[in-house]
């Protein structure tokens, strides 16, 4: 279905508040100005404003699909030059499946719903669809903005191609060879896991990294769990909001048919539940944006940080092996020069990586802290706002009903 999306100003347009901090550097500004949903893909319009010399024009506009973003991410993570950097996590695939299914099921003609209920459910589900849409746009935007903000990553050639090349990037889906490659990479990853969990016996000399390792391992696991639980809470709030629909409708029809003395009560109650539904729905979506999304993002980001640690440990392993090889060569007095050169290289590589990683991990921490702070404050403020609105609504209704008695 074709669905052009307007980006209204204000809170709703940037639901993922991570992006606000990034869009400040004038030398390179990236944003997703528009998005269109077509049957099974989403087309994003990426706009760039830059004063950097590499771009042919100060303002650019291209259309990209999700696969293009994934391709870009993979080029970064497979590039050894960026081994010491936390690669911003790729945005999740746009998933409208659940929402679409619900809308379809609704449309299939559930005869137990009255016309009023049907209209309200439809409204609710369409709102849900729109919210998911906005979120996916925000996720993709944040990814690009983090790349644009990073001093090293922003200069990447592929990034320019992504932002400027006005033809279709034709990033095809992975063929068998690449899938197999991915499979092997996963095996390597489990070896990495062994590395990082210290089962391989590598000696970690740097306290900073030792601390980070233990911290990230546990943190990532926890944040993943909390994210899952937050999602369930959000979905429960949604069901609750949906429950108010048939209640409101039933109360309304009772109100019109009841004896005079009860009419006001029921009609007022019907109105109340309708408005409570909207409030409850907003509670659900705010929890989604400020809590679930935050946790999801940091689940992915902490995984990226873990990946950095893997890479560093592999470099450390290489360095240690090179040392051993050099010792052996010296003992046998054979091919010492190449061994020396190799060892130098490994040492350099490892130390550069370590220095870069230290900076990255420190940045990661401060990013995390400020993101959590912002979102938790906003969450609390929104919850308060909704609770106050609900309370006022309820108290006003009570006044009317008590007066009616």
């Amino acid at each position: 279905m074709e669905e052009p999306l307007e980006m209204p100003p204000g809170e709703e347009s940037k639901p993922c508040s991570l992006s606000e901090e990034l869009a400040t550097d004038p030398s390179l500004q990236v944003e997703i100005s528009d998005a269109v949903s077509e049957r099974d893909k989403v087309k994003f319009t990426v706009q760039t404003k830059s004063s950097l010399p590499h771009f042919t024009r100060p303002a650019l506009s291209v259309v990209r699909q999700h696969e293009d973003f994934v391709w870009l991410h993979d080029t970064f993570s497979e590039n050894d030059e960026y081994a010491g950097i936390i690669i911003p996590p790729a945005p999740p695939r746009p998933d409208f499946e659940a929402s679409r299914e619900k809308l379809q099921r609704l449309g299939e003609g559930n005869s137990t719903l009255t016309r009023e209920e049907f209209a309200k459910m439809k409204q609710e589900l369409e709102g849900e669809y729109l919210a998911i849409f906005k979120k996916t746009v925000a996720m993709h935007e944040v990814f690009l903005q983090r790349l644009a903000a990073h001093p090293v990553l922003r200069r990447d050639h592929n990034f320019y191609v992504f932002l400027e090349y006005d033809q279709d990037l034709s990033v095809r889906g992975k063929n068998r060879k690449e899938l197999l490659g991915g499979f092997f990479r996963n095996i390597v990853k489990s070896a990495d896991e062994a590395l990082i969990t210290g089962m391989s016996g590598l000696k970690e000399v740097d306290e900073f990294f030792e601390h980070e390792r233990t911290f990230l391992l546990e943190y990532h696991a926890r944040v993943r769990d909390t994210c899952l639980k937050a999602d369930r809470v959000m979905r429960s709030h949604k069901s609750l909001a949906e429950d108010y629909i048939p209640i409101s409708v039933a109360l309304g029809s009772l109100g019109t048919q009841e004896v005079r003395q009860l009419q006001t009560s029921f009609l007022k109650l019907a109105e109340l539940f309708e408005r409570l539904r909207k409030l409850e729905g907003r509670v659900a979506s705010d929890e989604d944006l400020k809590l679930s999304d935050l946790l999801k993002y940091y689940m992915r980001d902490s995984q990226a940080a873990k990946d950095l640690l893997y890479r560093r440990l592999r470099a450390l392993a290489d360095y240690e092996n090179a040392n051993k090889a050099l010792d052996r060569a010296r003992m046998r007095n054979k091919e010492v020069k190449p061994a020396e050169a190799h060892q130098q290289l490994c040492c350099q590589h490892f130390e550069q990586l370590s220095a870069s990683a230290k900076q990255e991990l420190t940045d990661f921490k401060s990013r995390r802290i400020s993101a959590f702070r912002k979102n938790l404050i906003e969450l609390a403020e929104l919850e308060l706002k909704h609770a106050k609105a609900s309370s006022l609504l309820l108290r006003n209704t009570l006044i009317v009903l008590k007066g009616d008695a």
Partner: protein
Amino acid sequence: MAAEREPPPLGDARQPELEELEDGEDLFTSTVSTLESSPSSPEPASLPAEDISTNSNGPKPAEIILDDDREDLFAEATEEVSLDSPEREPILSPDPTPAITPVTPTTLVTPRMESKSITAPVIFDRSSEEIEEEANGDVFDIEINVSDPEKVGDGMNAYMAYRVTTKTSLSMFHKNEFSVKRRFSDFLGLHSKLATKYLHVGYIVPPAPEKSIVGMTKVKVGKEDSSSTEFVEKRRAALERYLQRTVKHPTLLQDPDLRQFLESSELPRAVNTQALSGAGILRMVNKAADAVNKMTIKMNESDAWFEEKQQQFENLDQQLRKLHASVEALVCHRKELSANTAAFAKSAAMLGNSEDHTALSRALSQLAEVEEKIDQLHQEQAFADFYVFSELLGDYIRLIAAVKGVLDHRMKCWQKWQDAQVTLQKKREAEAKLQLANKPDKLQQAKDEIKEWETKVQQGERDFEQISKTIRKEVGRFEKERVKDFKAVIIKYLESLVQTQQQLIKYWEAFLPEAKAIS
């Protein structure tokens, strides 16, 4: 005509009334000894007056028969008794017995019907005075509590005993405050007795809570989990509401079985409660209803009021069922929300523990605490959703079934009357034939039978009019109660919702500075 339903105006119009009163008096003295044999209805405290007339101009269905005229009528009647017929006092206590009120000449038979109430003069009269004096606000001074469920016995023979406490100033009871232990089958037994006595003459007897094999088995087997405590609590609350509704009914309140139930320490075990449980009675009533419908009773409904009421209750039933189902879904989801919030709280606490930045760690722990408190709130709200809102709807769905049952009894009553008329006709025809055939011996028998069926027809008509009258009154009372009930419950429920929101505000306001303190 409206005038017939209003209290007779003071002044000259009194005169005709006085005469009728004196007639009534004679009627009393004679009927005290010769009680009409009517269907076994002991001491119905029929508080009639307003809706006696079975005119086709029934009150509009949309209006409730909120007749406060009743009280005025009694007040005046009281005056008249004391002023004008002092000699009556030894016979009747100085309070208005219903018999005074058949002022309306529409149905001659009504005084006779009313007089049944004289059977147990002493206790009855005093209590009826108290009840009628309170009838002003429809609040009888009696309060029932069902509490302290206690498991008695072991294994499959175990049962729950509930304490039933009564607080009252009504003098028909021996004490002002007393309590007894009753088990569930005792309640069912009480209901079955009341239903047997009162349903078929048109009284809306509140249905007893339903049996539950699954629920009870769990309790018997001794599972101490939350679902069986929930079940017991649900039942306790239902039993309490059942008794409270029953004692609110002015007629049922005077029933000796009810009194015995509330007062006596030992109660004979109710047997056969299987067949007579609330659900059982519902089934019987529904079967009767179906049978009646299938019988294509083309009842010549001379009274539009009944037709409208039938329709109205049918609609109400449907609507309430729908609403009830939706509210049950709400309860379920709120419980889910509570469980999910608890799980989130635990997880957030662990996240807080693993966070290495101190201020953020503390904020996350605080968030976990807030969420834990919110979980508690959700649980309490679900509790309110259920006990305040959902159970009320369930109760009224069952009550409306009782109302429909009573309307069906009226139809059956009418049918019986019609059948009697048909039989009478047949007997007359038979007699005519015999006359022609000239068989003197059989003729006498035929004439006797005719007399017998004439009486039956008369009785049938009286019964029908009586049940119609009772139902009108009952429905009026029922609707009044229903409006009060619903309004009260709605307000109570909204107050619980407000409470929840106020608490949420408190919690989040306490959390906000913690979040801001992250640096």
